[in-house]
């Protein structure tokens, strides 16, 4: 069991309240996933020639200022950064692959949580209410956010095994369910050069998405392929730079409910997580169909 929640704002005037609206949604899913929680928030976009990296170090007193200085020297550019608990968000004018390669080479104990123009992935082991407090989610702004509360079944309760999983630039994935062919698929994807950090089944789904997108698939095509190649039970929510997508396996045992108003689209494992949203009483509420891809995205600004 796990809980998934997502909130995509159609009404830009609500962007300053994104975190505040999302906090009760994530906490409402504690019963479905009390062991870890995480979220991917999109906003505060960097310029086209820049990259935003979310990095994590086990030591809360890690010298982020020192790392930022080293990056400034290496890339001859200014690095904007701020720390949030064990995580730091760095913004710099550089190619994402080059910046990540530099970190792997020169700061190998730093974990890259996400990379893109807009995405920040924050996740930890613990009760959702504690994770929310740790990262001060209530104060965050943005255009959309997806989150996950985990009750581990297929692999250990660790930060690395918690969701969301990054699947490429500005992309991430959260999952409720379990995959049954993840071992074979992981082996195949490793041969194709996809790197895995854990034995987690969802990481394989994320790696699969990364692979398909590298092959030139659109998000829709990648998800169509996922419906063919992933065996097991799943409801996925996929965060993209401009919105999010929802897909359920053809059997659709894992729950999902979607609510839409003029102001937002929200999804959750259970309706309970949506009850605090403004105007939910009059929202269009429905259950996504099995093996059907739903995408909500805004055009590039």
């Amino acid at each position, binding site marked *: 069991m796990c809980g998934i929640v997502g909130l995509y704002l159609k009404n830009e005037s609500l962007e300053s309240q994104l975190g505040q609206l999302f906090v009760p949604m994530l906490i409402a899913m504690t019963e479905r996933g009390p062991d870890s929680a995480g979220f991917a928030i999109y906003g505060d976009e960097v310029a086209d020639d820049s990259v935003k990296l979310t990095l994590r170090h086990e030591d809360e007193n890690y010298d982020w200022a020192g790392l930022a200085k080293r990056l400034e020297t290496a890339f001859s550019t200014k690095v904007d950064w701020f720390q949030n608990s064990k995580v730091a968000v760095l913004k710099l004018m550089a190619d994402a692959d080059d910046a990540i390669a530099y970190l792997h080479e020169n700061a190998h104990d730093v974990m890259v949580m996400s990379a893109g123009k807009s995405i920040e992935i924050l996740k930890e082991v613990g009760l959702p209410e504690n994770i929310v407090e740790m990262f001060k989610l209530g104060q965050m702004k943005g255009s959309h956010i997806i989150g996950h509360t985990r009750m581990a079944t297929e692999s250990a309760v660790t930060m690395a095994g918690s969701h969301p999983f990054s699947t490429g630039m500005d992309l991430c994935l959260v999952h409720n369910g379990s995959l049954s062919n993840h071992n074979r698929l992981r082996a195949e994807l490793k041969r194709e050069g996809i790197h895995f950090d854990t034995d987690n089944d969802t990481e394989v789904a994320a790696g699969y998405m990364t692979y398909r997108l590298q092959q030139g698939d659109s998000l829709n095509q990648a998800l169509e392929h996922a419906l063919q190649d992933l065996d097991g039970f799943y409801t996925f929510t996929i965060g993209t730079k401009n919105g999010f997508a929802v897909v359920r396996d053809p059997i659709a045992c894992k729950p999902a*409910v979607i609510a839409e108003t003029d102001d937002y689209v929200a999804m959750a494992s259970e*309706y*309970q997580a949506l009850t605090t949203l403004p105007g939910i009483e009059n929202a269009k509420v429905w259950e996504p169909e099995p093996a059907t891809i739903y995408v909500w995205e805004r055009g590039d600004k």
Partner: protein
Amino acid sequence: MRTVDLATQTVRDLNQALHDQAKQCTETEWEVLNPKGQHNLAVGLDQKLKVDIKGHAGYYCGGMNKEADIVVHGSAGQGVAENMMSGSVRVKGNASSSAGATSIGGLLVIEGDAGSRCGISMKGSDIVVTGNVGHMSCFMGQAGTLVVCGDAGDALGDSLYEVHIYVKGEVKSLGADCIAKEMRDEHIEELSEVLKRAGVDEDPHAFKRYGSARQLYNFKVDNASAY
């Protein structure tokens, strides 16, 4: 009428108060406020009560119901009226998967759409869905009627026993051993009666009937010695 406000009281308080009515009935009309999608609302009732749930319900609402008439003024989550014995459950909105699962008696009316596996393993209840039902509906259904005024998803009536299925719209596909059957006078009569009881205004002649071809392993007398 007694009102239970779930903004201030727990689901356990609600269900206990409703169960107490089985021993001594002191109040027949109940109203539940602020359900907010909570699970297990009004389960295990055993008395002629009228319960109005004013909002959306979570999982298993009205489960195991006996005699009570429960109305959800909103949508319901998985397993609404599961294992219902008698009485009725009416959902004004949509229902999620497994609506009326294993229900033995009573009437379940869903005024919107029902998700997958509607009426799975039903054992004698009547289920009327004004909208569509999802895939695998009536899987292994044993007795009762399933009436769908809209369309049915894939694998309708898979491994069916003796449920009478009536569908007005399209059936995406039939499950193993489920076939279209002739609509005889007795079926028009049965369907008319169920629609009338459900308060649904539809012409019974517009429906098609589906049932079991009785060709699967368990229907073959040659296999009886295996048990």
